[in-house]
C-alpha cells in the first residue's frame, strides 16, 4: 500500500501561453487528511460497509467511510440508493429521508441515465469501473462534476449491488474548461497574430514564412522565399544580425533575442522585435526559426514618451521648480493636514523622491527659523484675502546646506461651499540666482562707491544725448558752478552754454561713432576762472554696440594754474637768461668802451710832449668825459638791478591823468621850447592798481622819447589814450617823430644801450627801462613805427 498525499492543484498560464498545473499545498487551517486507497490491485478488495456487520472491523470501516471526504454511496441491484455517507449527502444536498425514495438515475445528469443502464449489468457481473467521470445533479439542480470508481458489492460472496466512490472535481473541471477556452483563444491569437515566423537556412536564405509577413511587411511568400534575410535588414543592424547568427551557430538549440529594422515593401523601415532559434541540428527542422513582431508604433510611442519625460524631468531639474499640494482639512491645524510633494520638491529639500514621508511639520522644521513667521503670515493672508501668495524664504536641508526658495501658492476653493480645499503651489530653488544677484548688487554697490567718490565728475548719456546717470561729484559740480541741477532724462545739451552747443553736438555724434574726444577749456563761474578737462568716450554694450557717451569732467584749475605759473617761470627764466647775456654784453661793450678810451688817453699821456696844445686839451677832455661815461654806465646798471628788485613795493590806485599832468609840469620848459603838444584821453579808464613809481617812469620815458626823437622840422605831437578791452587796460602813446625802421632793427628796440639815432644823444636806456617795468607789472609792450611818420607804443595791463 502506498500512502498518497492529496494536494490541491491550481492552473497557471505561463508567459508563453501554455497552461500548466501546479501543486498547491492545502491551507494549514484545513488540516491534512489522509485517505487510504489501495491502488495496487485493480481488483481490489474494497471496504464493505455493512450495517449488519457488527464486528469490530465493520464498525471501524463504517466510521471511516462516514468521515471520509469522498462521496460514497451504495446501490441496490435495481439502482436504489441504499446508503450514502455524510460527504455524499452534503455535496448533493439530500437527506436520509430523501434517500429512501431516491434512485441513482435521479442523481445523474439528464440524458446520461444510460450510464446506469449500460454499466449496472457489468457491475452485477463482477466488473469494476475505474476513473470514471460523471456529472451528478444536486437536489437543487446544480451540476457537480465527479470522478471515481465503482465496484460490485458482495454480501456473503454474492453480488447484491454496487459501491461507488466519487470525488467532487467541479473546481478542477471548471479550471479545465477555462483552460480549454484559453487554448482556443491562444490558438486564435496565434493564427491571427501579426507575429512573423520564418524558417531560415544556415546560409541565411528564407525557406518559409507565416502569412503575417505579407500583412506586416507587404511581401508575398514567393517574393521572399529563396531571398537572403540580410537583404531586408537596415544597414545599421546588419552587423548585429550577423553577430547574433554567428553566436547562435556555435550554440545549437539556443535562442537569441534582438530588435531589428526591417524594410517594408513600400520602402520604410519597421522596427521588429523577436528571437532567432538555432534548430539547424533538429532533424525535423534543420533551420533557424525566427519569430518577430512589428514594434514600430510602440517604439515611436516609447521614444516620444522618453523624450517628453526626459524633457519634463530636465526642465524641472534645470529650473529647480517643484510643486506641492497642501490639503486644508483642518484650516486651523495646518500641520495635521496632508502634504504632497513632487519629485523635484523632494530634491529641492535635499531628499530623493519619496525618501521621507512629508507633512507640514517636517516642512516647517526645515524652514529657517527666522522665516517661519513669514510663510505663515503669507498663507494666512492668502486665505483671508483669497489671493495668491508668493514668498521667498530659506530652508536648511538635512545636509546642512542653506537654500533660498521662492514659494508661490494658490488656494483652491470648493465651488459650492466656497471653503478652501487645498493650496496648490510651486517651489523654486533660487539660491544660485539670489547669490548671483547679491554678488552683482555688491559689485554694483562697489562700483557706485568708486564712482561717487571719484574726483572726476562722470555723466553718462544715452544715444539721444540724454542723461542716464551721474556721480556725486557731477551733482555737486553742476549745482555749484552752473546753478542748475543735473536731472536724469534731461538733454545734456541744455547744460551747455549757448556758444558751446554746436561743438557739443558735434562731439557727441563723433563719440557715438566710436571716437574718443579730449580737450581742455576754461569757464568763468561764480568762483572765478575754472579750467576743466573733458573726456568723451563711447559706451558699448556687451555686443560692442555703442549705446551712449561717458563724459568725464575734471577740474584742472590747480594743474592749469601751476602749468601757467610754470610757463611764466620758464618765460621769466628765459628772459633772465637773456638779461644775463645782455648784462655780459653791457660789460663787454658799454662798460669797456669808456674804459678803452681812458686807456687810450692814458697811453697818449706818455707822449704828451709830442702833442700840440689843442690835442692836449682834447685828450684831457676826452679822459674826463670817458671817466664820467664809465660812471654813468655803472649807475645805469645799478638802476636796472634795482628795478628788478622793486617788485615787492606796495601797489596803489594810480591815476593816469594825474601822472601825465605831473610830468608835463616837470618838463614844461622843454615842452615850451620845442612847442610840444600833449593830448590825453583817459575817459575810458583813468585808474590802475599798480606801482606808482613804475607808471611814472613809463610815462616819463615814453613822453621824453617822443620829444627826443622828434622830427627837426615839425612840432612834436604826443597823444596818450587809455582803453579797456577783454579785461585788459590798453595804454597808447602815439607821436609824430622820426620813427624807427622796425624791419631792420625791430628786435633791438627794447634792448639796453640800443640806439637808432646818431643825431640825438641817448644811452639806449629809456625803452629798456620801460619794457622792464611794464613786464614787472605783468604787462606787455609793443611798438609800431614808420620812419619819418611816427611811433606808437601800446601797453597792455591785466586788470
Amino acid at each position: 500500500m502506498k500512502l498518497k498525499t492529496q494536494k490541491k492543484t491550481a492552473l497557471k498560464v505561463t508567459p508563453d501561453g501554455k497552461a500548466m498545473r501546479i501543486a498547491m499545498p492545502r491551507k494549514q487551517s484545513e488540516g491534512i487528511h489522509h485517505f487510504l486507497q489501495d491502488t495496487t490491485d485493480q481488483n481490489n478488495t474494497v471496504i464493505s460497509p455493512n450495517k449488519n456487520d457488527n464486528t469490530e472491523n465493520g464498525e471501524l470501516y463504517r466510521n471511516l467511510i462516514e468521515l471520509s471526504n469522498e462521496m460514497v454511496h451504495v446501490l441496490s441491484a435495481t439502482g436504489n440508493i441504499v446508503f450514502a455517507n455524510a460527504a455524499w449527502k452534503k455535496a448533493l444536498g439530500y437527506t436520509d429521508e430523501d434517500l429512501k425514495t431516491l434512485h441513482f438515475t435521479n442523481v445523474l445528469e439528464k440524458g446520461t441515465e444510460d450510464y446506469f443502464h449500460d454499466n449496472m449489468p457489468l457491475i452485477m457481473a463482477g466488473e469494476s469501473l475505474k476513473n470514471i467521470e460523471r456529472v451528478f445533479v444536486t437536489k437543487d439542480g446544480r451540476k457537480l462534476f465527479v470522478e471515481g470508481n465503482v465496484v460490485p458489492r458482495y454480501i456473503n460472496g454474492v453480488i447484491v449491488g454496487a459501491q461507488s466512490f466519487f470525488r467532487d472535481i467541479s473546481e478542477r473541471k471548471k479550471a479545465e474548461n477555462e483552460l480549454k477556452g484559453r487554448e482556443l483563444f491562444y490558438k486564435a491569437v496565434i493564427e491571427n497574430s501579426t507575429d512573423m515566423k520564418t524558417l531560415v537556412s544556415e546560409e541565411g536564405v528564407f525557406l518559409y514564412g507565416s502569412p503575417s509577413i505579407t500583412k506586416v511587411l507587404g511581401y508575398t511568400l514567393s517574393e521572399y522565399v529563396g531571398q537572403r534575410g540580410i537583404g531586408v535588414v537596415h544597414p545599421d543592424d546588419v552587423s548585429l544580425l550577423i553577430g547574433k547568427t554567428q553566436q547562435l551557430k556555435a550554440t545549437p538549440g539556443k535562442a537569441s533575442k534582438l530588435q531589428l529594422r526591417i524594410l517594408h515593401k513600400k520602402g520604410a523601415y519597421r522596427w521588429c522585435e523577436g528571437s532567432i532559434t538555432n534548430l539547424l541540428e533538429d532533424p525535423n527542422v534543420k533551420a533557424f526559426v525566427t519569430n518577430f513582431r512589428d514594434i514600430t508604433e510602440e517604439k515611436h510611442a516609447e521614444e516620444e514618451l522618453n523624450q517628453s519625460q526626459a524633457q519634463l524631468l530636465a526642465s524641472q531639474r534645470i529650473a529647480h521648480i517643484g510643486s506641492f499640494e497642501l490639503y486644508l482639512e483642518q484650516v486651523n491645524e495646518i500641520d495635521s493636514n496632508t502634504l504632497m510633494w513632487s519629485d523635484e520638491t523632494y530634491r529641492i529639500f535635499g531628499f530623493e523622491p519619496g525618501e521621507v514621508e512629508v507633512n507640514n511639520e517636517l516642512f516647517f522644521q526645515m524652514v529657517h527659523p527666522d522665516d517661519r513667521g513669514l510663510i505663515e503670515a503669507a498663507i494666512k493672508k492668502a486665505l483671508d484675502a483669497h489671493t495668491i501668495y508668493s514668498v521667498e524664504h530659506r530652508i536648511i536641508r538635512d545636509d546642512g546646506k542653506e537654500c533660498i526658495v521662492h514659494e508661490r501658492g494658490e488656494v483652491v476653493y470648493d465651488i459650492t461651499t466656497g471653503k478652501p480645499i487645498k493650496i496648490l503651489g510651486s517651489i523654486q530653488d533660487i539660491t544660485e540666482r539670489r547669490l548671483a544677484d547679491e554678488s552683482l548688487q555688491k559689485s554694483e554697490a562697489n562700483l557706485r562707491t568708486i564712482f561717487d567718490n571719484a574726483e572726476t565728475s562722470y555723466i553718462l548719456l544715452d544715444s539721444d544725448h540724454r542723461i542716464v546717470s551721474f556721480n556725486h561729484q557731477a551733482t555737486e559740480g553742476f549745482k555749484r558752478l552752473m546753478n542748475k541741477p543735473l536731472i536724469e532724462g534731461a538733454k545734456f545739451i541744455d547744460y551747455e552754454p549757448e556758444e558751446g552747443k554746436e561743438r557739443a553736438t558735434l562731439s557727441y555724434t563723433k563719440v557715438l561713432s566710436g571716437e574718443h574726444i579730449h580737450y581742455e577749456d576754461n569757464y568763468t563761474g561764480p568762483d572765478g576762472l575754472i579750467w576743466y578737462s573733458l573726456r568723451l568716450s563711447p559706451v558699448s554694450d556687451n555686443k560692442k554696440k555703442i549705446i551712449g557717451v561717458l563724459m568725464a569732467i575734471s577740474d584742472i584749475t590747480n594743474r592749469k594754474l601751476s602749468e601757467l605759473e610754470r610757463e611764466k617761470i620758464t618765460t621769466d627764466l628765459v628772459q633772465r637768461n637773456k638779461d644775463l647775456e645782455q648784462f655780459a654784453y653791457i660789460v663787454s661793450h658799454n662798460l669797456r668802451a669808456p674804459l678803452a678810451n681812458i686807456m687810450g688817453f692814458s697811453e697818449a699821456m706818455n707822449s704828451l710832449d709830442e702833442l700840440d696844445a689843442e690835442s692836449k686839451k682834447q685828450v684831457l677832455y676826452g679822459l674826463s668825459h670817458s671817466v664820467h661815461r664809465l660812471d654813468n654806465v655803472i649807475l645805469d646798471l645799478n638802476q636796472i638791478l634795482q628795478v628788478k628788485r622793486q617788485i615787492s613795493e606796495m601797489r596803489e590806485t594810480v591815476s593816469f591823468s594825474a601822472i601825465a599832468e605831473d610830468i608835463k609840469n616837470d618838463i614844461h620848459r622843454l615842452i615850451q621850447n620845442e612847442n610840444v603838444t600833449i593830448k590825453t584821453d583817459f575817459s575810458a579808464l583813468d585808474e590802475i592798481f599798480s606801482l606808482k613809481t613804475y607808471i611814472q617812469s613809463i610815462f616819463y620815458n615814453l613822453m621824453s622819447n617822443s620829444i627826443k626823437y622828434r622830427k627837426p622840422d615839425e612840432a612834436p605831437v604826443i597823444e596818450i589814450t587809455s582803453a579797456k578791452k577783454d579785461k585788459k587796460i590798453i595804454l597808447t602813446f602815439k607821436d609824430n617823430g622820426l620813427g624807427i625802421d622796425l624791419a631792420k632793427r625791430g628786435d633791438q628796440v627794447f634792448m639796453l644801450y640800443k640806439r637808432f639815432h646818431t643825431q640825438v644823444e641817448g644811452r639806449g636806456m629809456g625803452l629798456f627801462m620801460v619794457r622792464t617795468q611794464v613786464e614787472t607789472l605783468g604787462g606787455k609792450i609793443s611798438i609800431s613805427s614808420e620812419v619819418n611818420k611816427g611811433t606808437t607804443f601800446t601797453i597792455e595791463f591785466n586788470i
Partner: protein
Amino acid sequence: MSAKPIRYIVIDDDPHNNLSCTIAIKSAVNNAEIHCFTDPEEGLSYIEAEYAKTNEAISTVLFLDINMPSMTGWEVLERFKDFAVPVKEQITIYILSSSVSPIDQELALNNPFVADYIIKPLTKPKVLQIVSKSETRKVF
C-alpha cells in the same frame, strides 16, 4: 710789392675814441694822413668818392667800430663788399672794438674783408705792428 700805408681812416660814433686813435696813429707814423668819421654813412661816401677817381693806389688802413647806433660795423662791411674791386684792394680793414667777446672776434675774423680784430684802445705799438705787417704784405 709792399706798401706802407699812407692813409688811415677811423669809423666810430665815439669822438673820444677817434681822438685817441688819431694820437696813437700820429705817434706811430710820421705824417700819417688820418680821416675820422663818427657817421659810417659819411665814411662810406668818402671812400666811394676818394678811391674811385684815383689812378694811383693809396694803401689805406680802415679802423671800423662795430657797435654804432645808425649803422653797425657789419652793415658797413656789407656795403663795402659791393664796392669796385680796385677800391677794395686799396683798403685793409681792421675791426676796432671795445668788446672782448670772443663771439664778436670770431664773427670779424670770418669776414673776408677783415684783416684782424683789434681790441680798444688803439695804441702806438698796435699801429706799428699793423704798419710792419702791411710792409710785408703783398699788394699787387
